[in-house]
């Protein structure tokens, strides 16, 4: 036991002096919060654009339809006079859309014939879509409104012409995009843990072999298992730090940005929730260290280890992806899958849903058992003579 601690202390000291490795790990810890913060701000700004900004609309022939103009102005449209050549202006992208009211509009309108207005638009310009849709909706609304009035005046129920009424339920709002994004938050946390330990584990295993210090080390009178445990424990503080930094980062992002306003759902990342997420993630630190240790011990060099470990960090993202697209109920079988159970639990914490204690316990125990199994395999690996003398 004492010797495990000696190995752990040495590896921690050695790793702390390796600034480049652990700062890379820390960068990965900040990756999730920075990315999610940025995406939320983007989504937030587009939500605000759509709702708050009045529509600037260039109109040619305003004098031909004073009532229509008044209707538009009442609906938050700022009417501006159009340039001499509206089509050129739209083609060049100076204006998103131009409304042309021809001189015969008034006459057609008064005599009850269909009065025509023209919209000049470029349907291939994505950024203009919001403006185009809005003005189209307003014009249709005006037409329906007056049509209804005319029917009522003639004593006909307007419902007669409303044969089918369509109500749109658009789920592809910016909100739903953001909700999708939020589903990835648990994975970002796990990603940070895996990447936080990767450089440390690589250096203490593949690095030890690469710099030819493994052979002299193993000649010391210490059971092989002690080396595995000592090196594993040395990785823990670094992944703890990664986990902590990621959570603090997410805490800041979700408490500084008005996320509720953007998303329309409550995300409860207060200090208590963050602390609970921290606790629920602790077994993953063991798992991430053990599995990467096993793989890195096979690698002949740090370079080789560096080609394997990123894949391992991606594995827990697969159930996370599924979670984003197909919401999964926190059933027992999900808790038995290490990292998947935790992702579901984190999601529940975030959404302030009640957590079942037994789920948390099962997920923790399952993860710890798998970690112990992997560590046992790693110890067996270190007991083989090939650990030092591998044929290249």
């Amino acid at each position, binding site marked *: 036991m004492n*010797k495990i601690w000696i*190995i752990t202390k*040495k590896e921690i000291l050695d790793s702390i002096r390796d600034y480049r490795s652990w700062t890379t790990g820390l960068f990965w810890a900040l990756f999730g919060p920075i990315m999610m913060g940025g995406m939320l701000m983007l989504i937030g700004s587009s939500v605000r654009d759509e709702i708050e900004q009045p529509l600037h609309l260039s109109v040619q022939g305003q004098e031909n339809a004073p009532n229509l103009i008044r209707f538009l102005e009442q609906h938050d449209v700022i009417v501006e006079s159009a340039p001499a050549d509206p089509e050129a202006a739209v083609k060049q992208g100076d204006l998103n859309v131009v409304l042309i009211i021809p001189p015969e509009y008034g006459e057609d309108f008064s005599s009850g014939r269909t009065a025509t207005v023209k919209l000049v638009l470029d349907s291939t310009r994505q950024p203009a879509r919001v403006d185009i849709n809005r003005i189209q909706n307003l014009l249709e609304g005006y037409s329906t409104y007056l049509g209804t009035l005319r029917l009522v005046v003639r004593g006909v129920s307007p419902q007669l012409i409303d044969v089918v009424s369509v109500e749109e339920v658009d789920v592809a709002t910016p909100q739903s995009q953001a909700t999708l994004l939020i589903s990835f938050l648990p994975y970002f946390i796990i990603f940070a843990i895996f990447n936080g330990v990767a450089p440390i584990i690589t250096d203490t295993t593949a690095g030890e072999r690469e710099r030819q210090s493994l*052979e*002299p080390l193993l*000649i010391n009178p210490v059971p092989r298992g002690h080396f595995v445990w000592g090196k594993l424990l040395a990785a823990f503080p670094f992944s703890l730090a990664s986990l902590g930094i990621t959570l603090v980062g997410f805490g800041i992002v979700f408490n500084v940005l008005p996320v509720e306003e953007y998303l329309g759902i409550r995300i409860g990342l207060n200090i208590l929730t963050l602390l609970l997420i921290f606790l629920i993630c602790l077994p993953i630190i063991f798992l991430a260290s053990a599995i990467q240790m096993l793989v890195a011990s096979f690698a002949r060099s740090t370079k080789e280890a560096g080609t394997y470990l990123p894949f391992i960090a991606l594995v827990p993202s697969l159930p996370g992806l599924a979670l984003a697209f197909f919401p999964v109920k926190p059933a027992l079988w999900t808790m038995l899958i290490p990292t998947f159970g935790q992702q579901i639990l984190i999601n529940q914490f975030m959404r302030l849903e009640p957590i079942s204690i037994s789920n948390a316990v099962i997920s923790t125990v399952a993860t710890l058992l798998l970690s112990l199994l992997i560590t046992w395999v790693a110890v067996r690996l270190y007991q083989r003579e090939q650990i030092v003398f591998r044929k290249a």
Partner: protein
Amino acid sequence: MIEVQDLSKSFGKVKAVQHVSFSAADGQITGLLGPNGAGKSTTLRMLYTLLKPDGGSARIDGFDVTESPLEVQSHIGVLSDAQGLYPRLTTRENIRYFGLLHGLNGEALERQIDQLIQMLDMQPIADRMTEGFSTGERLKVAIARALVHDPRNVLLDEPTNGLDVKSTRAMRQFIRRLRDTGKCILLTSHIMQEVAALCDYIVIISGGTVAAQGSPTELLRKTGKDNLEDAFIEAIGSEEGLQ
């Protein structure tokens, strides 16, 4: 005291060591001499417990290498072919780590480290990180950490490999001093002159088997030659591996 009895080891079809027997006495320098690939390092690796013999046995101070590897490891100091240090630790920290792993600590360990630093003239590099050390400096640190627990038996795999003339002389001097303290020294070399200059007892290994063994004078008498070089060639039956 190292006793090797009928030791064998194969890697797949390659029979690296076959039925090797010899013993190395305390207070003597024993040399395993042979061309590259003769099985010297494999023999040594079985003695320092990193390889398990397929057959035969080896005992160090009475402890069997397969049955009680930890005891064996406590009784040997090894300079292996791989001499990697921890570049971000200082000389002192490198030595201390191995001392702690041997169960030493506190004042006794620090005194031992100081003594080794003095003995190997390492004062100028004692508190520097070992990153960027020269071959000679790295070797000194590797020796110091191998001897930190003051082992009775010292195993050296090609100890002067890659050293310049001055360092080689210093190294040989150091090995003799260790012998004079009564330790059992076992070293490997493919250099005839080195073994002739250092060793009290020579085991000539060729193709995984012992071709001849004895003190230098015994070897001359057995082969009927008047110098060791000829005796060596006579024993292994070719000029392969001679410097």
